[in-house]
């Protein structure tokens, strides 16, 4: 079970409070987790990564286990602590005022 933390605006959009938990078959990667997330919450399609290119949107970052995974390849396995559910996979919006 993968624990995913969304930024507040996307939690509101997906009508999620707190973390969401996703079943991901096999060794989880960023791609497989995001695929599972979008399958469970179709309204999130296009808000985290581009519909077609699947590229991360520029003001969105991916953190886990105190590491920035934003620039990892999408098929790189996620850390064991994320795969085991000990640590969440965090989708983060860039900080901004206004």
């Amino acid at each position, binding site marked *: 079970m993968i624990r995913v933390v969304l930024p507040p*605006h996307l939690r509101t959009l997906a009508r999620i409070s707190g973390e969401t938990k996703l079943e991901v078959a096999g060794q989880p990667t960023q791609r497989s987790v995001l695929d599972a997330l979008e399958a469970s919450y179709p*309204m999130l399609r296009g808000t985290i990564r581009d519909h077609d290119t699947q590229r991360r949107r520029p003001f969105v970052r991916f953190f886990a286990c105190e590491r920035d995974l934003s620039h990892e390849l999408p098929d790189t396995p996620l850390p064991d602590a994320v795969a085991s559910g000990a640590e969440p996979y965090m989708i983060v919006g860039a900080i901004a005022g206004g």
Partner: protein
Amino acid sequence: MSRVRVLVGTRKGAFVLESDGKRDRWDVSGPHFAGWEIYHVKGSPADPNRLYASQTSGWFGQLIQRSSDGGKTWEPVGNKFAYEGTPGTHQWYDGTPHPWEFKRVWHLEPSLDDPETVYAGVEDAALFRTSDGGQNWEELPALRQHKSGPGWQPGAGGMCLHTILLDSHHPERIFVAISAAGAFRSDDSGKSWRPINRGLRSEFLPDPEVEVGHCVHRIAMNPKRPDVLFMQKHWDVMRSDNAGDSWQEVSGNLPTDFGFPIDVHAHEPNTVYVVPIKSDSEHFPLEGKLRVYRSKTGGNEWEPLTKGLPQRDCYVNVLRDAMAIDSLDSCGVYFGTTGGQVYASADAGDNWAPIVRDLPAVLSVEVQTLQ
């Protein structure tokens, strides 16, 4: 008894303001989609409870929301806006080629007779259409593929398609306007387009009377007289009596003819409203006085409307999509400001009062007249 519903898009959410036909007491709901930029909210003329909203964010991109109960509840629908084919380039601010990139939806224009069909004007400029209530969007690519497209250039707000007018007398006719390319018309439901900018003159262009390249801010029509169009250009207020084939300036005695919105009275097709703004470098009312100007002669002769509007120390702007007209017998006029006020007049502009004073900056105002 008739009612009105005012749909307000702001920098931080959407608001729905409702009143009976007297328009002196208002119920305010919102913010809907709190924290997101709502560029536009508009209802279907064929089903007033069907609303569409353009919700956008620099972080999370574009969403389209749909309501089937007049704005009480909403559901996200399709948000994929893909240009057809390889979109190529337009001109960047410095004249160099720049790839066409989808950024956001500026304007949603529901069909006059089908609540499932909606047109979307987007940045970078293109026209999209859905015929399934917003689930799927397809580009009408002939506009972007017009031979002038590679020469289109953004205005300061981006290269946006911000105006879409549908013509009930000619169901296959569509007018659009793009900053800063100009106005275009299709007479075959978007299969082909031609620029309709003859008579426009823009001193900031190398050729001031060039066919394409004008910064048109807004076009308006009275639906009962769709061949007569009024335009607020960057500078100049213009009028066309032949569906855009040619334009003449009708700025007349306006104190400044720079501005963004323009609209036409619901029952008097020669009565036109603008909000003069000091200049393109100072986007606020002249002398700190917020004045709507009304012409009852189809332009040239304008009168300031000031009762109930701040006449000192007012430095807000009124954006291009932030004025609307209802169709009650005593025609209502509405506009929103970047200071968060939404003003209403229930007597065609003679008297004004704020419906709300402290919303986030207002991006768009629409009104529905409900029976």
